[in-house]
């Protein structure tokens, strides 16, 4: 789960990381009031969960409160990469002398949390990684020992942090690590970490992602989830414990198991079609969950045909078939469907579906070919 900039920075502040003064507004009037309170120049920043807000015109500098109201008016309601801006963060404008990148990720190959720093702050770190990889300094952190001050010193030296700021930098780096671990983050970054004109460090922008699997022990963070920022189909799928990812094609897919789901999509592509979604109904799915899955697939207007591919192990083909029948009864579908049921209770499953108008397939290749043909009919 991704957090908004203002949410991430509020968490950082709890761990002693200095952030600009500022508040969130959802109307231009509120933005004006906040700017008035802050006094001086402010930055009006759209709060949407996508990168490239600045380039899209979603971040603007305002000279006073009147200007802040104008800028907020322009930004609120704006569309950035398909998301509507509903809130802006009004922050005191920083006097930027230098910009640094500081971030934490879980490095899968090293099996460690890794702190990354770069003197090239303020730009996309992936871009830096691609074009100037030697500009990124990495420090791996032992999970049993934690982040040590010598590691902060190493980073400070490599990043060219002025001597008088190394102590402050150490506190920020250590605070960021603690924030990362205590909140079960998968990403925490300050970009940029600014050296101000009056010689202080300030986390001007921030980003955090929280491990979905750990939300059960972070109730307050789980409550921050904003379903209006997510694909409505994906929100609905989560309600039924289904893994669903919306794609651009027209062949709806319902499969059990993540690997087989991906392989089924790949087969569709290989035979010249385009999958409309990834959907894994999981192991041992009930008829109710299967019905929900089919409803979600069919509510996508792009879907011209549906491919159901089930390799029964703990998942029982008869249970899947019952779910399909329930869903068909509810929505009265005319969409052509190709179904392949193999494994546990496959004969019972096929018998249940005998009356439904579905095209049976025996092999995965046959199923994919039939679905692609139907999608082009």
């Amino acid at each position: 789960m991704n957090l908004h900039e203002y949410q991430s920075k509020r968490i950082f502040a709890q761990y002693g990381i200095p952030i600009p003064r500022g508040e969130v507004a959802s109307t231009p009037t509120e933005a004006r009031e906040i700017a008035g309170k802050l006094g001086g120049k402010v930055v009006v920043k759209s709060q949407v969960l996508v990168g490239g807000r600045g380039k899209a015109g979603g971040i603007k500098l305002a000279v006073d409160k009147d200007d802040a109201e104008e800028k907020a008016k322009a930004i609120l309601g704006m569309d950035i990469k398909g998301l509507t801006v509903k809130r802006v963060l009004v922050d005191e404008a920083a006097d930027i002398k230098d910009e640094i990148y500081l971030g934490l990720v879980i490095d899968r190959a090293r099996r460690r949390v890794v702190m990354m720093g770069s003197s090239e702050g303020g730009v996309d770190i992936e871009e830096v990684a691609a074009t100037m990889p030697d500009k990124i300094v990495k420090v791996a952190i032992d999970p049993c020992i934690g982040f040590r001050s010598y590691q902060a010193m190493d980073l400070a030296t490599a990043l060219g942090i002025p001597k008088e700021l190394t102590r402050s930098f150490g506190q920020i780096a250590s605070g960021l690590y603690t924030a990362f671990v205590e909140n079960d983050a998968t990403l925490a970054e300050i970009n940029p970490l600014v050296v101000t004109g009056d010689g202080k460090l300030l986390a001007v922008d921030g980003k955090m992602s929280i491990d979905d699997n750990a939300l059960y022990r972070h109730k307050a963070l789980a409550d921050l989830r904003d379903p209006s920022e997510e694909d409505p189909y994906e929100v609905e799928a989560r309600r039924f414990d289904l893994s669903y990812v919306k794609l651009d094609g027209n062949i709806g897919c319902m499969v059990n198991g993540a690997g087989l789901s991906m392989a089924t999509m790949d087969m569709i592509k290989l035979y010249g079609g385009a999958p409309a979604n990834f959907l894994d109904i999981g192991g041992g799915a009930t008829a109710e969950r299967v019905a929900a899955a089919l409803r979600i697939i069919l509510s996508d207007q792009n879907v011209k045909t549906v491919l159901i591919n089930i390799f029964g192990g703990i998942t029982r083909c008869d249970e899947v078939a019952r779910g399909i029948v329930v869903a068909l009864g509810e929505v009265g579908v005319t969409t052509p469907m190709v179904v392949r049921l193999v494994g546990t209770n496959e004969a019972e499953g096929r018998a249940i579906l005998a009356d439904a108008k579905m095209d049976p397939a025996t092999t995965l290749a046959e199923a994919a070919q039939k679905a692609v043909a139907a999608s082009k009919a």
Partner: protein
Amino acid sequence: MSILVNKNTRLIVQGITGREGMFHAEQMIAYGTNVVGGVTPGKGGQWSVGVPVFDSVRDAVRATEANTSIIYVPAAFSPDAIMEAVDAGISLVICITEGIPTLDMVKVRAYVDQSDARLIGPNCPGLITPGQAKVGIMPGHIHIPGNVGVVSRSGTLTYEVVAALTARGIGQSTAVGIGGDPIIGSTFIDILQLFEEDPETEQVVMIGEIGGTDEEEAARFIRDHMTKPVTGFIAGQTAPPGKRMGHAGAIISGGKGTAAEKVQALEAAGVRMAKQPTDIAELVAANIGR
């Protein structure tokens, strides 16, 4: 021969009185796996599916001389269950549970690495040596004994491939599901090495997917250390970047972990890559008797 599990496996089931644990314990016993006991804290002294239940892994090991443990406990308790098994001297721990927080696994993996124990999973289907021991949730009947080693990050996709091998009469030495999480106990390299050393394994099938760099590292290992033929497949060629495809570890992030990169690395290491999973059995068949 085979790797990791066989007739000498003495298995305990952690979480044996739970719904999943009990169901799969029964299935494993029915397959012929030597299940010697189970563990559920607070239920020591009871019996479940015909085997004794113990309060702790330590008690179970003392009474049964178990050498392998399989874990079916909820994600919140799994890290503890893994470490308890390792601490009690179990040499092979298989964790089926899905949904363990990644930072918990960072710690668990560091702990396991300090011991002599081996961890398979989490978020995996387990492993099977056909005709000897099924330690997992896979349908046993689709496997037959033979000489092809199978290693995979996936569950059902592996069943699909194994069933196709079996349909051609090609048996498996051992099939190992290493799991779909970002941090897992045993990686491709660990299992490939065991297959390379196992005299009964003549060739290997490796099924990877998007996310991480395990396949790329495996490619280097295959190039430098493997003499047996390897046939491969990578799932997720159509997966969009930045989205988790079911498995917590199946995500292309920062442009890294794409199927194309992995296919290229494996091909360069001499692995015969299948364009679709249904081609694997044919590629394997072509290697037999060479």
